[in-house]
């Protein structure tokens, strides 16, 4: 049963992957004007500062001398073979650069996810248990503002407070968790909190609503009536049952952390693929831009797939729509 579901779900990916490939392919082709001149860094107002040979070489490298559909299939064929082209600036294979920077993105997204769980679940539970008290209002206030505050501004304000004024954590820099876990924690704390804030805010809200729902159920009343300690009722019964729908919400949101990481990686100069994307855009290094968009989109699709399969495994009643 699960096997069939997985096959069906993977079949559904075909149009998605086609669209992803089309978007990534078109990034170069919708550049207004002559993309080759743009990539050569020629300013149309200043005029030419390139040689005919350079132009020809780049045209050939990108395959721009062919019709568009031919270009697409050739490009797709190369991508499927793991050839994402050469970076226009460093002349290195794009795939190598991406693989170097991929782990940092995953570490950050994962750390942010952990932050989300540690903030939102307790906050939601406590807010529900102490409904309409100051604790509840603060949690809801946090949820409201957490979703409204733009993460890049929050990043700047936290850097100002914790790095520049108090000097507790470094504002920029990176260390791999595999090499220096302590230094990694120091560096990841601010970016992870900033990246997780908006998601933590929305999950807090759902958790609170779900807990209130569960706490009003008959089985909770029964558990209380038979004399179970209140903590036990809250944690073992109500919170546990709330988790079923919260896991869904968490799964839907985890992939969104990747989309949000573009800005955060740039602000904190975190050496991941998302900041690589921006470097590529600023440097008009379009093979890098294409590669970065591709890898982020594929990760996003893959996470969604895994989450869906996990649900099916956890709850066999879920049907494919």
């Amino acid at each position, binding site marked *: 049963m699960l096997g069939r579901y997985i096959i069906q779900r993977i079949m*559904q990916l075909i*149009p*998605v992957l*086609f*669209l*992803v490939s089309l*978007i*990534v392919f*078109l*990034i*170069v*082709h*919708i*550049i*207004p004007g002559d993309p080759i001149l743009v990539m050569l860094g020629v300013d149309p107002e200043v005029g030419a500062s390139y040689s005919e040979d350079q132009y020809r070489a780049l045209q050939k490298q990108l395959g721009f001398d062919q019709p568009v559909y031919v270009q697409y299939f050739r490009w797709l064929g190369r991508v499927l073979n793991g050839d994402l082209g050469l970076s226009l600036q460093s002349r290195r294979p794009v795939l190598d650069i991406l693989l170097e920077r991929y782990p940092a993105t995953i570490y950050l997204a994962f750390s942010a996810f952990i932050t989300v769980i540690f903030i939102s679940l307790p906050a939601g539970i406590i807010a529900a248990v102490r409904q309409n008290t100051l604790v509840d209002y603060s949690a809801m206030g946090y949820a*409201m*503002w957490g*979703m*409204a*505050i*733009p993460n*890049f*501004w*929050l990043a*700047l*304000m936290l*850097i*100002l407070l914790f790095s*520049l004024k108090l000097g507790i954590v470094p504002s920029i820099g990176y260390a791999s968790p595999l090499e220096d876990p302590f230094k990694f924690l120091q560096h990841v704390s601010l970016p992870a909190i900033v990246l997780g804030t908006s998601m933590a805010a929305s999950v807090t809200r759902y958790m609170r*609503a779900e807990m*209130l*729902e569960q706490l009003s159920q008959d089985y909770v009343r029964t558990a209380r009536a038979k004399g179970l300690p209140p903590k036990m009722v809250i944690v073992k019964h109500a919170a546990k049952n709330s988790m079923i729908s919260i896991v869904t919400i968490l799964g839907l949101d985890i*992939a*969104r952390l*990747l*989309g*949000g990481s*573009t*800005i955060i990686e*740039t602000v904190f100069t975190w050496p991941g693929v998302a900041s690589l*994307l*921006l470097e590529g*855009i*600023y440097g008009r290094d379009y093979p890098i*831009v294409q590669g970065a*968009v591709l890898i*982020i*989109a594929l990760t*996003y*699709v893959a996470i*969604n797939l895994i989450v869906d399969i996990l649900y099916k495994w956890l709850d066999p009643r879920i049907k494919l729509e």
Partner: protein
Amino acid sequence: METVSLQNNGSSSPAGLRLAALRFTAGFQVIARNRLALIGLVIILVGLFAAVFAPFLVTHDPFEINISERLQGPSRPHWLGTDFMGRDTYTRMIFGARTAFLVAIGAVMLGALLGIPIGMFAGYFGGWVDMSLMRVMDSILAFPGRLLAIALVASLGGGLFSLYLAIGVSSIPSFARIVRGAVLTQKEKEYVEAARMTGETDSLIMFRHILPNCLPPLLVRLSLDFANAILTESSLSFLGLGFPPPTPSWGLMLKEVSPFLELQPWAAFFPGLTISFMILGFNLFGDGLRDVFDPRQYDR
């Protein structure tokens, strides 16, 4: 007979529209009682007011450079201080509202104008039309919205049109899904059957009769998408991918003063606070609308 019925359709609103109008009045009463939604509405109206009447509300020229007064804190001549070129922060923030609303209105309209008909056709005709349209929509949803926006402006360049496109495209699927869902429940109802029997065309049934009944969830979506559009515009501008300087845009203002964060924190504080308030406003209002139209959700 033919002309009479046409006139009727044109001058007086059909039943669906009248019902929607009734719901509106009832809705406004509920919103007025929902304090948070009311606060949201007030924030939105203040922002809109600032955007429309910007030239009458400001104290300086938004482009006037005055290096000798750069990076000042709040003072009597400069209420919210100045930026790194000595431009008045308050003035640029008011004009920034114009930029934000201009982009958000266009982008959300684009999403709605494409998404609503797509959802309508998919739901109304069903079958392979539905299948293929919704597959495309799902594919767009499977692409992270913020990444799509960045990829599009990276190629198209920053400017009003490419921002509309970049931000609007990712909201098409949500509109399509809402309308499709609503159409599926509406099209089995008797009033649609009746309209069909009187010989009305499919498009007339869809847009005259069914669409007004899809309005409530659409309005909620509209409000939340507005918040998202403003956030995306300011994010793109913050990354230097939105409008070019010296356009007064909240995100760009933040980007420009971020190197001077320690020197003059106020310069970065106010633009960010403004963005937060604007998004909060649309979120609160959207939540309030949802309470009105679907009291079962979030009513605790």
